[in-house]
């Protein structure tokens, strides 16, 4: 749920990175954090276990500049990917404005990808959202690995509705900002629609 403050002239939106465990959601945020000017970002918070697995969420506030005199702020969140953290994932989806699904390109993670995508649909449904109506993009991460599945196969399995999708190598930043820009644009476009434009 975007929050528009006419008084301070700010638009605040929430974007959630979703996907199976170890697919690179946190790595996406870390890359964005490292490559963003200090004045455009807040502190990145990671609630992680001692082994650096996401326990609750990562959080990164970003300012993208002004649009029609309104400051646009995006709050990026990741969910914990491991299956048993489902209760936490549901909480993080509350109030979401846009979703990035991060898939793992490796053959052996295909089952986990599909399970996570189904879980995303179920959890959104429980919150009263429809994935097909939300601003939503897909990222295929780990494209540099030798066991990466061809794009066409991934698209068929994980992107049946043909939303915008991006190839990525998150630690090197390949595809990271393209993905963020795409979802941010969709969120702002939705905001315009929502206001009768």
């Amino acid at each position, binding site marked *: *749920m*975007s*929050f*528009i*403050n*006419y*008084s*301070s002239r700010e638009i*605040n939106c*929430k974007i959630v990175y979703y996907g199976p465990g170890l697919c690179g959601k946190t790595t996406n945020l870390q890359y964005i954090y490292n490559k963003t000017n200090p004045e455009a970002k*807040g*502190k990145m*918070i990671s*609630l992680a276990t001692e082994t650096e697995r996401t326990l*609750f*969420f990562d*959080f990164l*506030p970003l300012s*993208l*500049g002004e*649009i*029609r*005199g*309104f400051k*646009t702020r995006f*709050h990026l969140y990741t969910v914990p990917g491991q299956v048993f953290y489902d*209760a*936490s994932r*549901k*909480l*993080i989806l*509350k*109030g979401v*404005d846009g979703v990035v699904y991060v898939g793992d390109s490796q053959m052996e993670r295909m089952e986990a990808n599909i399970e996570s995508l189904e879980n995303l649909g179920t959890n959104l449904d429980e919150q*009263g*959202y*429809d994935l097909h*109506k*939300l601003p939503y993009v897909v990222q295929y991460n780990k494209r540099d690995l030798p066991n990466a599945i061809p794009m066409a196969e991934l698209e068929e399995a994980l992107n049946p509705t043909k939303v915008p999708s991006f190839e990525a190598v998150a630690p090197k930043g390949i595809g990271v900002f393209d993905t963020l*820009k795409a979802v*941010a*644009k969709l969120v*702002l*476009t*939705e*905001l*315009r629609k*929502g*206001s*009768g*434009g």
Partner: protein
Amino acid sequence: MIQQLVMYEEELQQINHICEVLQRDSNARAVLVIDKNGQAVAQAGEVESLDVTSLSSLTAGNVAATGAIASLLAEKEFAGQFHEGEKTNVHISIVGARVILVVLFDERSSLGLVRLRVRKAAAELAVTLEVMVKKSAAGSGAPSVFSEITDDDIDNLFND
């Protein structure tokens, strides 16, 4: 489906005023109003040294987790939380099922005083929120500045 929460000048002034009075009357260090999704709405007191954005996100996460624990225990919600530190204490309460009222206080105040003052402030805040929600709902669908956003405006945001 995007339900927008819209804040107008009049309600923000009222909420700021409620925060200022609460902060003064409870001898608190700072008072924050946060929406349940983690966005900071208003603040009063010694906030310059605080990372309000991070505090808002983490408090909302905390409240969401506590709410989920409540529902697992067949409770409607735990309306309040209190964290006791060596120097700073935090009193957290949910107002109107919609926003979170946070009071940060130290040895200049006490939990009893904070609780007493929060009760009054929460009642006032609930009334203002009610108006704000109605205005947000009435405003949706009406032409606004956002209906004039063009594709170019959006593209310009991303010109590095």
